[in-house]
């Protein structure tokens, strides 16, 4: 970084020359008491709830409780240097955070101030931290996949863009790992990711940022961090701030975004702390009555926004330039799925030739949320887990038993669901993974039965063997998300029985080598699958041929091991 002193001087000179100030009118109050990150203020009679206030030491606060004689303020920063009797100034606006492209690749606190030692953040855009969620007309059904790159999830609990999928499990079961893999898998897809770290150890967050950076994910990721040592107020605000940063890309750019809230249990605890200090009445588990609303209004902001369509002439450069609403030849903008129908009708009626329908560039953005919830001893019927389960569109359960048995990601397929993601799954994946969930559930039952040592008939034994191999196939190492085509080909090999003669322990190696074989020797097949996104006849035929060819080769290298281990089960 080089600065030219004369440039800086001229900038300063210009600023001073243009400096013009009038009498400022502000609303003030005085601190009655302060402590534990909370201040009670007398005065500020016209302050709005959620309005920013400023203390003489420069720390900002948020008017939270408006009472008859005083205002309860949560302090967003160091409260130890605020004294009784000091003047508090209302700032006249609700809490906002800077947003925009400048934040991508940065680590910021919930106020949008950079904390990564990489210089100031300059952006002309800002958004309200608390904003209302889009309404019914502004949305459209979830129909695009948000690939996590994790076989077990993309196959059985698929996530769509705009969906809210909960990741729930005990501590140390790999919740963050799934979210991080999902972020890593967005590389090259244009999806902007926001990772919100709430009340985590600074060392953990630092390590995580390093992982993202090493894998090139910081090029499209914003990290919002409120550490364990930050005030509860910042921990409470972090998810809302992160969402506001993602919303910029959803609303203004029509982009797809992914927000990870890691984790909402800690945010609920921070909110409980604030509420109790502000003397709001405690409810179940001492959480305030509106803790449900705290989470529902946050997750409601995830959305798949409706596409907007305009009718444009055939020669319009829709691929090269941004399509805006003013392009419409009849001045009409068609909103969402019903709008598209109407546009088709209008096109047929009024513009029989020379025109087409185009989607405006800034419409149709999405915000996918991956909230995390930590349970205690698998207790999902505690207050916060039940709340968030009921708000989200599905959940991924992680089980410690599976985790320690080496099944990683430790997804419990039986109770993990995705309520809307199925519609967003690609045709190919749907075909391959259609029966997988039920098969695996049946396998789990059989497995328990088989442990009794009963004599099994051949068909049952075969089902068991297939199950062991599928479980093995669904294991996936951390930080190695797979492209959907690779996932489809792997799963196809498993469900179609190509792995049946491969020893269970050899399955990962088989998969790895098979995918390398495809990438090197059959890349056209892979490209075709990526392009078509469905199991068309030529793709299936090609895949079958490739598998047969590869299997012959694979077997020849491990003949001895195969005969010794075949059918041995686990």
């Amino acid at each position: 970084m080089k600065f030219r002193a004369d440039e800086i001087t001229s900038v300063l000179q210009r600023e001073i020359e243009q400096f013009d100030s009038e009498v400022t009118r502000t609303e003030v109050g005085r601190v009655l008491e302060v402590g534990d990150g909370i201040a009670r203020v007398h005065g500020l009679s016209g302050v709005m709830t959620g309005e920013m206030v400023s203390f003489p030491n420069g720390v900002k606060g948020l008017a939270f409780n408006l009472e008859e004689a005083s205002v309860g303020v949560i302090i967003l920063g160091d409260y130890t240097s605020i004294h009784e009797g000091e003047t508090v100034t209302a700032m006249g606006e609700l809490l906002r955070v800077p947003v925009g492209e400048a934040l991508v690749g940065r680590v910021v606190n919930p106020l949008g101030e950079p904390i990564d030692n990489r210089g100031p953040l300059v952006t002309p855009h800002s958004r309200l931290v608390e904003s209302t969620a889009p309404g019914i007309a502004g949305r459209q059904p979830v129909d695009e996949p948000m690939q996590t790159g994790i076989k077990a999830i993309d196959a059985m609990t698929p996530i769509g863009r705009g969906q809210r999928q909960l990741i729930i499990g005990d501590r140390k079961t790999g919740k963050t790992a799934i979210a991080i893999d999902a972020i890593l898998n967005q590389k090259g897809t244009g999806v902007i990711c926001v990772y919100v770290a709430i009340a985590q150890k600074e060392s953990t967050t630092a390590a995580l940022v390093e992982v993202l950076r090493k894998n090139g994910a910081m090029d499209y990721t914003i990290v919002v961090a409120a550490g364990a040592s930050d005030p509860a107020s910042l921990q409470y605000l972090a998810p809302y701030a992160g969402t506001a940063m993602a919303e910029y890309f959803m609303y203004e750019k029509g982009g797809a975004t992914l927000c990870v809230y890691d984790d909402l249990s800690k945010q609920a605890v921070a909110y409980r702390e604030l509420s109790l200090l502000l003397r709001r009445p405690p409810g179940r588990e001492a959480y305030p009555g509106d803790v449900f609303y705290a989470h529902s209004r946050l997750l409601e902001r995830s959305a798949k926004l409706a596409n907007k369509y305009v009718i444009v002439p055939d020669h319009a450069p829709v691929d090269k330039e941004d399509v805006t609403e003013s392009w419409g030849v009849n001045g009409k903008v068609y909103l969402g799925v019903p709008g598209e129908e109407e546009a088709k009708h209008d096109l047929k009626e009024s513009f029989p030739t020379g025109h087409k329908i185009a989607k405006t560039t800034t419409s149709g953005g999405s915000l996918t949320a991956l909230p995390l919830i930590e349970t205690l001893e698998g207790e999902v019927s505690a207050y916060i887990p039940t709340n968030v389960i009921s708000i989200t569109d599905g959940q991924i359960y992680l089980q410690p038993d599976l985790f320690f048995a080496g099944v990683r990601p430790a997804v419990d397929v039986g109770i993990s669901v995705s309520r809307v993601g199925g519609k967003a799954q690609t045709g190919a994946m749907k075909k391959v993974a259609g029966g997988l969930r039920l098969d695996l559930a049946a396998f789990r039952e059989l497995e328990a039965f088989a442990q009794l040592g009963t004599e099994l008939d051949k068909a049952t034994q075969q089902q068991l063997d297939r199950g062991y191999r599928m479980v093995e196939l669904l294991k996936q190492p951390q930080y190695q998300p797979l492209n959907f085509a690779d996932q489809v080909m792997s799963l196809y090999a498993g469900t179609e029985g190509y792995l049946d003669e491969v020893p269970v322990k050899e399955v990962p190696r088989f998969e790895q080598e098979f995918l390398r074989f495809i990438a090197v020797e059959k890349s056209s097949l892979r490209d075709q699958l990526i392009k078509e996104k469905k199991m068309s006849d030529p793709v299936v035929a090609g895949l079958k041929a490739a598998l047969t060819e590869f299997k012959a080769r694979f077997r020849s290298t491990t003949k001895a091991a195969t005969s010794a281990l075949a059918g041995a089960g686990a």
Partner: protein
Amino acid sequence: MSTTAPDVTETVFDDKSLQVARSYAEAIVNVAAKSNEVESIVGELEEIDRDLRVLDRRLYSYLGSTSVPAESKAKVLEEGLGGRASATVVRFLQVLNAHGRLGLLQAVSSEARAIWDRKQNRKPVTIQSAVELDDSQKAAIHDKVARMIGATPILSYQVDPSLIGGLVIQVGDDLYDASIRTKLRLMRSRLIAGQARAMVDTQL
């Protein structure tokens, strides 16, 4: 209901007792209004409160204490104020005492003043300046402020050299700041913001 001795230290403001104090203040203002002597009675209350707090803190905490029986305090009030204060004020203090609210005297008197000021369309206004203002300046300010707030201002002046220059006028919760200190602060923050932009510009 608090049973501890009321706080008579210089705290900003005890908002918990405000509600109670307001009821008593309204009552005394209404009583005084009947005999048209609100101004003098409110003045007397303020004077008693000030005298007690400034001149005789021990008597003040004695009167405010809930562990002293009301009868003995009543006697002190009767003997101490009888004849010297107006009968209405003494009666009012006796009522406060009978209800165990003598500790609220400060809140009641300031609340009574606020209620009376509001009824008279008067507003307390604080003027801060860097240097002592002379009389012509004060008169000019009085006229300006009166026109600005549409009420009779009750001005109180404070000198604060840290303002450097200019004036700061506070009416209720509204603060009109035309001080050099604030202008410099504003300029500083704008320069920092401008500099950050310039730094990023040169980087690009």
